[in-house]
């Protein structure tokens, strides 16, 4: 599939960075070999420099076109990787999600990325069996469904808040049922009070919980995930707001957090389960893949999605190269036309007796210089494009995306350079086929 596969296999004994550098060199090799063969023994560069300077604005336009097409291409590919890393980083705190059987992807979106949807609830007994299972170090209900000003309100436990944000940047953990800890991006101050609305987004019912008021007591660290725009409240409060039992027997009604009493547990859409050891997480997943429960690793679901997207990525890379080659072909056609402006100078060289290969090397070096500068500038444009698109995506999704160019993009640019520098042989041949005397007299 990957034409570079055999190469990587041959050099897999090297450190990763060395492998990438070797691949970069190999990809640049055709360009270097062609360049060496074309230029060997000659010094065309003062002429090339003169010609570049002579038509500097046209050349700048050509370089700009190449740079933009290369830059957007690699910027998008970097973005795709950044998005994968960003979504995975946002899912990092979520070791194992246990929910009622259904769609893993729906639950992933709801529990990890806070895109709520109506899902069946897990019962108190189920929660109890999860919380008391071997090796479980954290079993936190994630009760979503309410919101305030488009900030999702999630009911959980103090342990969950500590899991998401080991320390609070401001204030303190909730102690009372009406306390709330907010995400780093929530536009509320410590001490502010608000009334939750039932539902999220368009389906919100503002007056449903009109009698209830939360007070902000603390703020979590930034997580680079939609949880930065969330409000975490005691799960007991969420149940109470909905007129349900609050998870504890009446004589312990003031308690916050686990243990919960299965008889007074109204249900939760999802439970975040965490174990210290990786093997234990897998054992727990196996244990809770039952008829009543679904257990999954957000990371594994993402990996499957990424696997599906892998083909998309390859198609994208190919499309990017094709677009870049098309733009460069356009530029080379422009060069053939520009060559008419150089025709007299090239004819002069040939009239003076310059070898054909020298004239060829002048034209090729000219085109190759435009391509090379364009590609290098394209890397700069790519960094910029990746940064800008990242910012837009982060603002739109609340998932922190830090896309930046890396080896795959550099490899792509190197391949692009080699391919187009070979294409640049064409205008050089065309320039050689022009009639000397006609060009000389023009």
């Amino acid at each position, binding site marked *: 599939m990957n034409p570079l596969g055999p190469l990587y296999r041959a050099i897999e004994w090297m450190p990763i960075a060395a492998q990438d550098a070797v691949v970069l060199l190999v990809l640049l090799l055709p360009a270097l070999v062609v360049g060496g063969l074309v230029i060997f023994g000659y010094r065309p560069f003062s002429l090339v420099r003169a010609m570049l300077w002579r038509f500097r604005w046209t050349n700048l336009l050509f370089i700009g076109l190449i740079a933009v097409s290369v830059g957007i291409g690699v910027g998008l590919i970097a973005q795709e990787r950044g998005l994968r890393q*960003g979504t*995975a980083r946002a899912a990092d705190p979520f070791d194992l999600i246990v929910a009622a059987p259904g769609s893993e992807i729906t639950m992933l979106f709801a529990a990890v990325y806070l895109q709520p949807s109506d899902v069946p609830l897990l019962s108190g007994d189920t929660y109890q069996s999860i919380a008391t299972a071997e090796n479980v170090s954290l079993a936190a209900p994630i009760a979503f469904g309410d919101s305030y000003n488009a900030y999702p309100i999630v009911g959980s436990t103090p342990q969950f808040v500590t899991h998401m944000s080991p320390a609070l940047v401001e204030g303190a953990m909730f102690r009372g049922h009406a306390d709330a800890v907010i995400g780093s991006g929530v536009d509320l101050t410590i001490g502010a009070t608000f009334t939750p609305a039932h539902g999220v987004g368009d389906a919100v019912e503002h007056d449903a919980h009109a009698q209830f008021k939360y007070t902000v007591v603390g703020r979590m660290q930034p997580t680079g995930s939609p949880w930065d725009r969330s409000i975490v409240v005691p799960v007991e409060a969420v149940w109470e707001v909905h007129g349900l039992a609050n998870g504890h027997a009446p004589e312990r009604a003031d308690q916050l957090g686990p243990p919960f009493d299965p008889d007074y547990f109204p249900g939760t859409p999802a439970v975040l389960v965490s174990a210290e050891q990786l*093997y234990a997480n897998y054992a727990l997943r196996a244990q809770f893949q039952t008829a009543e429960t679904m257990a999954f*690793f957000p990371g594994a679901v993402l990996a499957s999605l990424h696997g599906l997207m892998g083909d998309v990525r390859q198609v994208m890379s190919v499309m990017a190269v094709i677009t870049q080659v098309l733009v460069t072909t356009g530029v080379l056609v422009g060069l053939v036309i520009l060559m008419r402006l150089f025709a007299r100078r090239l004819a002069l060289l040939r009239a003076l007796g310059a070898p054909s290969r020298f004239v060829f090397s002048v034209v090729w070096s000219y085109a190759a210089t435009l391509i090379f500068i364009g590609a290098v500038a394209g890397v700069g444009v790519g960094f910029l494009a990746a940064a800008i698109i990242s910012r837009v995506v982060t603002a739109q999704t609340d998932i922190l995306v830090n896309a930046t160019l890396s080896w795959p993009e550099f490899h792509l640019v190197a391949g692009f350079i080699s391919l187009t520098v070979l294409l640049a042989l064409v205008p050089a041949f065309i320039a050689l086929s022009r009639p000397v005397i006609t060009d000389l007299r023009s």
Partner: protein
Amino acid sequence: MIRACLIVLALLATTIMAQGTYAHGEAHQDHDDHVVEADGVRATHAWANATTGSTALVYVELENISESAVTLTGAETELAASAQLVGLENTGGELVYTVIPQMPIAAGSKMVLSPNGLAIRLEGLTAPLVHGEHFHIEIALGDVHLDTAVEIESATATQHSHAGHQH
């Protein structure tokens, strides 16, 4: 004319049925290869993706039908320098396979090694894995050793070609 048609149909039907029987017989034959059982542990549908690389992941369904817990400790194959149990882990946004030295399987429970989860990672493959062929792997569960055939599926397969069958 009608008689001729009927005869042709009858002939065709017999051939198809014969083929059906044959196909079934074949499935049944390698059925035995798909399930291996020893000392109360059953391994089903071991498979791997075809590759020409030097590492591969082997997936298999393990079922502990015994009365006591067993522990998956590793594996061994002539085809690779090493074989280790690994699990996909999310470490700060990087999804990587981490070695799991020991994996308990409770009595009467099932442990599925499948893509993007648990797998036996073979490193230092001595030969390419060719689609349609198979190789043998010895799965170690404490003292119990299960020698099972690993079916090599296509490079892009996401499950065993017989997955979903009840054995």
